[in-house]
């Protein structure tokens, strides 16, 4: 199954990456390339929408952590939108809920971002 990765940037400078499909050892490189490409283009505030992700494994987690490290080097941020319990469970097991900001919706993430400014 293919992994679909698309992105757009809001007027507020937040780049939203929508991911659809299964993120595993085979497909994760596609997401990694997208995150590297965005950082290379100067997009340092990223929001990954995981609502249409059907499967996530540790390779996918590693890609997200790698992306977070890259944007932090530019004082940026990488946060997530996820309400799926099966996906959230993986973040909890690995302790990564302490590392990523996780929001219920894109609107929720934008609201908190405005509030933090």
């Amino acid at each position, binding site marked *: 199954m293919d992994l679909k990765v698309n992105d757009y940037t809001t007027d507020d400078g937040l780049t939203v990456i929508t991911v659809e499909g299964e993120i595993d050892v085979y497909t994760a490189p596609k997401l990694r390339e997208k995150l590297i490409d965005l950082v290379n283009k100067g997009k340092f505030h990223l929001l990954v929408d995981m609502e249409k992700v059907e*499967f996530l494994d540790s*390779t996918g987690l590693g890609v997200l952590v790698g992306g977070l490290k890259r944007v932090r080097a530019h004082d940026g941020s990488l946060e997530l939108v996820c309400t799926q319990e099966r996906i959230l469970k993986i973040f909890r097991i690995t*302790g990564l809920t302490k590392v990523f900001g996780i929001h219920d919706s894109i609107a929720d993430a934008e609201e908190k971002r405005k509030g933090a400014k």
Partner: protein
Amino acid sequence: MATVELSFSALPVHVRTARLIVTAVARRSGIDEDLLDEVRLAVGEACSRAVEAHRLHCPDEPVRMEMTAAERRFEVIVNDSVPGDDSSGTGRPTTPADLPKVTGPDDLEFALGDGAADLGLAVIAGLADDVDISTTPKGVQIRMSWPVEAAPTT
């Protein structure tokens, strides 16, 4: 004897195939529907780990997986052919007890590079009802099992 045995080329694309097969066999074995996601993810992690080890050390050797339903347990064994000393030569842990813990938002180092394999073991340890990782001269064997409520269908 295993209920189903699978041998596949050490290619990332086949890890999904292994996940689909283990899910089908687990369902047929009578495992609770709520546990299927955990079986699928844990076995996928074990297969990913084996595929990565084979790609580094013996790309032509297949990864082997055995699935058995017996005595109200569903057991999956994933074997790689990379001797333990080699597969853990980067210093990565081979037992869940050795895993580093994420303690705060700045604790990222372990999850990068080879650390992805550590995350994989953490996921396996968190999801399987019972896990045993053994290192032998022939390779690393990850044995995982879950309870089966219904009588297995053979």
